[in-house]
């Protein structure tokens, strides 16, 4: 039984809906906070991931490197860190919405 096309269609809908929700959730923070977050991203995340986010001791954060990774898990990594690696939890300095916005910027290549 081939339900492929139907499934694919449904998936597309789900993905569209999900990306819509995510975009709605990740509205840019008001200035000057947005600017502060970008500074944090390049200067402090950049301490390990590179000023231009192409990687260092930490992995690269370019759109190519993050392609296909679920945004939710990237947001969780930012907020909670990754045990067993040097990635620390940034929750004391960022809200969930702010982390979502940064992930969206990174994945879309708008972080520069």
């Amino acid at each position, binding site marked *: 039984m081939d339900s492929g096309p139907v499934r694919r269609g449904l998936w597309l809908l789900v993905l569209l809906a999900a990306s819509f929700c995510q975009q709605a959730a990740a509205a840019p923070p008001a200035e000057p906070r947005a600017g502060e977050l970008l500074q944090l991203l390049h200067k402090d995340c950049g*301490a390990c991931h*590179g000023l*231009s986010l192409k990687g260092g001791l930490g992995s690269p954060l370019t759109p190519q490197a993050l392609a296909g990774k679920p945004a939710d898990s990237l947001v969780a990594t930012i907020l909670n860190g990754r045990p067993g690696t040097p990635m620390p939890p940034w929750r004391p300095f960022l809200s969930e919405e702010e982390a979502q916005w940064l992930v969206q910027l990174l994945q879309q290549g708008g972080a520069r």
Partner: protein
Amino acid sequence: MAGSTFATGRRTLARLLAPLLCLALAGCASTPLRGTGDLGVVIERASGSVQIVDNSHAQSLARVQGLGDLSHASVVFSRDARYAYVFGRDGAISKVDLLAARLVKRVEQASNSIGGAISSDGRVIAAQNYSPGGVKLFDADNLQLLSSVSTAAFGGGESKVVGLADMPGNRFAFALYDSGEIWLLDASTPSAPKVQRFEHIGKQPYDGLASSDGRYFIAGLYGEDGLALFDSWHADAGVRRILAGYGRGRQALPVYKMPHLRGWSIAGDYAFLPAIGQHEVLVADNRSWAQVATVPVLGQPVFVMAEPGGRRVWVNFAFPDNDKVQVIDVPTRQVIKTLQPGRAILHMEFTPRGDAVWLSSRDDNKLLVIDTATLTVRRTLPALEPSGIFFSSRASRMGM
């Protein structure tokens, strides 16, 4: 083209003679003779430039541009202390003439690099790379590639190279972050270097240092409490663990920036080393390497640097405490002063005999020159998001 502007008292003379000189001596150097022993290089990370500074008069002499991505750049000096080799994060090595304030040569040798070292005979530059991982050796005169040492050569994927330091006998030591090894590279025949490997030295070495006599190489470990020590006088004995278990089961605190190690952390009879995940400086006896004390500090230490005389040790910190600097008195092992000199203090560099220390404040776009006797600010100088400060006195020091 490398831009440069010498701001000196020669201006008046130059104004009078400029038209004549331009015609008669175009391109000819009319700069008075000077030495390079009190010169230095300040990395301006975001603008891809370096400032050439004079630490006798605490002034900036020139800016050299066009060096690429200098985030996390580091510098070594030719042994005549005339040239600075700047290792950029984008994998480029730039050779800068301190006297002419000019970029002499720039080679792109990797896509992601972290630093380098110069051999004991001054002829070979070694670059340590993250991507692709490995070490490359270059002729110090013309930056021609001499050989490459892949850290993937022995299987298990290429490993990021950390802590590259020069050792006597044209050797270099470094650690491998991913595979937990220390390698000793003999570059006495730089076109065919030999590698001696030490495996299982500990989890996630993040940086390394060579002692100033070139005998020891120490790798800091992120993945466990302790450091790995290699004694080059007894290479057959392998690598042993020192300061093991300094966290003693305490909850590790988050590390928002990795500490940096270099040979400056050894003061007199003691080595002062940053703990990882504890807000402490570890103090070890530098012969037995036994832990003798810990000094509590206000945050995660990044640089732990002894004054050249060894009497005091200066500490800066990871985010979010990177606006502060603490000064430790060595005999009493107490913090005697907490300074708040500016936002994002990324680096500290002592003048050759330690009468002053220069600090870079990235987010306040300035350099501070602090008198080490009075702990007061002598002068501030403007700089564009400064990070590393490197004085040419490093040219004659091992492990720098």
